């Protein structure tokens, strides 16, 4: 069966996350978004682990569902058009900060376990070497390679995926805290890594420019810090709904066709696409950075080098090259942002939220609306402007001021005149 998975996210036990980032709301938002397989995040945190054991029950092998009494807690909010059987997978992201090859490395890694027993083994070993109680995403002075060893020893089906591999500060290939080659990060255990997460600021074509990434299948996840951000990015599977099937689709991606592709942010919208300094409000295309000798024109210090420049630095192919293991992808703008654009108000405003919920009730989940729903149906439920916005998004016909140095990019779908003329045309058809 076909399903979407977003398995890199956090619980309310992680720092700077929303208080309602709990299983009940994840179960609800998974249905809003159309994400059927959701990572639990944070399984090394002892209190969250206990909560997972209490509230989840086994479903298919290696996957869990929220027990009915907890599902019921949010069922009033759920429009029947979105109803879906959500599954959870035991996951955690580890922040590895350590010295390797004479530099401080900061690498985030996502870890996956097929059972509570395997998860407990990982939790206990990490608990013995660091602090896993303060943060759902623990900060450990542990080498990524040694983390991978602990993961591999916990269960034959446990695996690790380096997270958002291009993020400057915290990733395997990042400009600040990363390495130039995956092998330098995972050493002798590199062959046990079979997938990489693209992160919000890069899309598959950027990654395809590196031969060194050819052995890996690309996955996408949303790294949500609140339930509404679930599924910003996701991975599409068409295989049996089970942990072993997902594992095989990743590990044996050259022969197993289970992994179908990804849905992505427009990379320009990610927080680290361009270079720059947020505090100085300098946003630079890598070309401009080069023109300024890598220094911020405002403060004169080196700029934070974004993902685009870093990819350019490490790439050995020009733009347009396809990896032998490439999968299709779709670039999306979150529905609330599209509504916000059509309404001319902020995406968190009451008005946008009301329209969002109404659309879900009348049409179905967000990914369906963004990707598959016929535009006439969108127009009927949400008006011509929204339908046109979604058409343009699907066609990639939008304008984005790129993100840089931690600042998200900003999206523009319409000019004010365009907006007026579409609305006027709609008025004409109504009367």
């Amino acid at each position, binding site marked *: 069966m076909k399903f979407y998975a977003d398995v890199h996210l956090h619980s309310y036990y992680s720092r700077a996350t929303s208080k309602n980032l709990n299983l009940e709301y994840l179960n609800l938002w998974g249905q809003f978004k159309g994400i059927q397989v959701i990572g639990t995040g944070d399984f090394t945190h002892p209190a969250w682990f206990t909560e997972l054991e209490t509230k989840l029950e086994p479903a298919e092998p290696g996957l869990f569902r929220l027990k009915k009494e907890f599902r019921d807690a949010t069922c009033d909010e759920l429009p029947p058009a979105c109803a879906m059987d959500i599954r959870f997978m035991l996951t955690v992201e580890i922040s590895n900060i350590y010295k390797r090859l004479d530099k401080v*490395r900061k690498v985030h890694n996502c870890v996956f376990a097929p059972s509570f027993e395997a998860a407990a083994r990982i939790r206990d070993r990490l608990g013995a070497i*660091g602090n896993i109680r303060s943060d759902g995403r623990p900060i450990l*002075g542990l080498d990524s390679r040694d983390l991978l060893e602990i993961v591999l020893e916990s269960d034959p089906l446990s695996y690790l995926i380096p997270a958002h591999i291009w993020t400057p500060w915290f990733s395997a290939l990042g400009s600040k805290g990363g390495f130039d080659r995956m092998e330098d990060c995972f050493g002798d255990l590199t062959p046990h890594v079979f997938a990489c997460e693209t992160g919000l600021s890069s899309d598959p074509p950027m990654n395809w420019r590196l031969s060194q990434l050819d052995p890996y299948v690309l996955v996408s996840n949303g790294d949500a810090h609140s339930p509404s951000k679930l599924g910003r990015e996701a991975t599409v599977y068409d295989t049996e709904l089970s942990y072993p099937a997902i594992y095989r689709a990743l590990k044996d991606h050259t022969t197993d066709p289970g992994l179908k592709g990804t849905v992505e942010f427009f990379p320009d919208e990610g927080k680290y696409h361009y270079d720059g300094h947020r505090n100085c409000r300098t946003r630079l295309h890598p070309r401009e950075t080069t023109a300024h000798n890598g220094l911020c024109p405002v403060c004169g210090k080196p700029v934070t080098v974004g993902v685009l420049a870093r990819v350019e630095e490490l790439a050995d192919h020009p733009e347009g090259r396809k990896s032998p293991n490439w999968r299709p992808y779709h670039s999306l703008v979150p529905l609330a942002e599209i509504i916000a654009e059509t309404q001319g108000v902020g995406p968190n405003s009451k008005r946008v939220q009301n329209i969002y919920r109404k659309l879900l009730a009348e049409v179905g989940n967000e990914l369906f609306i963004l990707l598959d729903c016929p535009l006439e149906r969108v127009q009927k439920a949400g008006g011509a402007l929204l339908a046109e916005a979604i058409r343009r998004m699907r066609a990639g016909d939008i304008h984005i001021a790129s993100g840089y140095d931690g600042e998200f990019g900003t999206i523009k779908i319409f000019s004010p005149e365009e907006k007026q003329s579409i609305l006027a045309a709609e008025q004409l058809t109504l009367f």
Partner: protein
Amino acid sequence: MLNPSQQQAVDFDGRHLLIIAGPGTGKTHTLTHRIARLASGLSGDKAVLAITFTNKAAGELQERLASLNVSGENLTAGTFHRFCLQVLRDHCARAGLSKDFRVAAPEEIRPLLAARWPELTQSKLNARLSEISRWKACEAIGEEPGTDVREYDAVLSGAGLLDYDDLLWRVWRLWQEQPEVLAGYQRRYAHIFVDEYQDINPLQHALLVALVTDANGITAIGDPNQGIYSFRGADVAYFERFAEDFPGAGCLNLAENYRSSAELLSASTQVIEKFNRFGVPPLTARIYQEGRLLIHTLPTAAAEAEYVAHQIEKLIGGASMFSQDSGRVASHEDQQVSFGDIAVLFRLNSQQHALRKALDRMGFPCHAAQPATGDEEDELCPAAPANIAPAAEKISLLTLHASKGLEFPVVFMVGCEERLLPLRLEGLPADPQEERRLFYVGMTRAKRQLYLLGARKRSIFGQSYRCEPSRYLNDIADHLKSLEDPPPPKRRKAEQQINLFG
């Protein structure tokens, strides 16, 4: 590679040699090469004895010597305790011990004595036990034991146990009563090496004097400015007496420092100058990098701990996306510091609580070291569980005593206040000169960055105090001190702002 003074120490040809080696002067390096020179060419029945301060140091020494082709059979390396344990195992009948005698750690002994002396409170018992230990180390030679010691010994021998002090004491007695046993060791060891000579106590001193004869030699190395164990009976005065104890002895200085930046070295030299009674020449910096000494006083001990945690976050360059994105750390700050590069040092273990709390809240990995024993004595007792060292980097939380011999790019010394440094608390006798040396030991752990922090208000053992900055800070020239960054932003505010985006 040896510098000229190190080379001179290695090549010194007289029988007895005292090497004064300040912090970071390549002490172990020099010692290793001198051992290698004197051990090479020894016949099978001869060996050198290397007394180290910890068993870990002994292990490292053996490794380095193995790489210089000094084989195990020509080398005995270990602490005084381990060496004496081996002597007793080899001669247990002669020493009047049963074959299966056992050495007990203080934790095992304490309950036995608590049962013997039920009238003592916990702290009185601890005080009596340390006094017994000190007596055994300092005064047992030539004196009759008092009632406490006799009762204590009766309890231990009733249980078939020896304590750590007994190991040394029993060997001393064995050698006195059976000179042929001593003569065997005198013949076997062609040369004796002693590391950390400033920290030896009278009993250890007596063992060395006994072992050194007209036919062998001794090399002692250490730094009288770093003597910090007088509470255990150690006496830096043995430095002065070396030439009397071992006639004809030479004395050499290692004065080139390969650890700390020049600024930090000048500052620590200014602090120790007021003690320097042995006239140790000042150290010269051989590391050419910028150093930074930062002195800062905070309102409370909790604020001091928060400050440490916040500074560490800045040094690491932000430990989370959150700290980057919230602008809590400047994104262009250069960061080549990881957790293993950082140590937080304090005078009393009780200061650790606030620090742990603050670091925990940040989610930073840290490990709290045990109060210094100066000797990993656990290894002597099979009962003590093996301590499996984790492979992950952590921030080191250490008492100043435990920090001895270690070095870190970044060092925070907290509690730089009168009453803590120098320690002046009722019931905790402390020698002001030794406190100064302790302060010096702490400062000289730092390679690049040293924070000397204090609080204006602090509670110690439940008692609240107003605090004045430590007198030692006044000895540092103002031009070396950089006095404070802008205050850290208020955490809660930053977090709320970020949640608006979440």
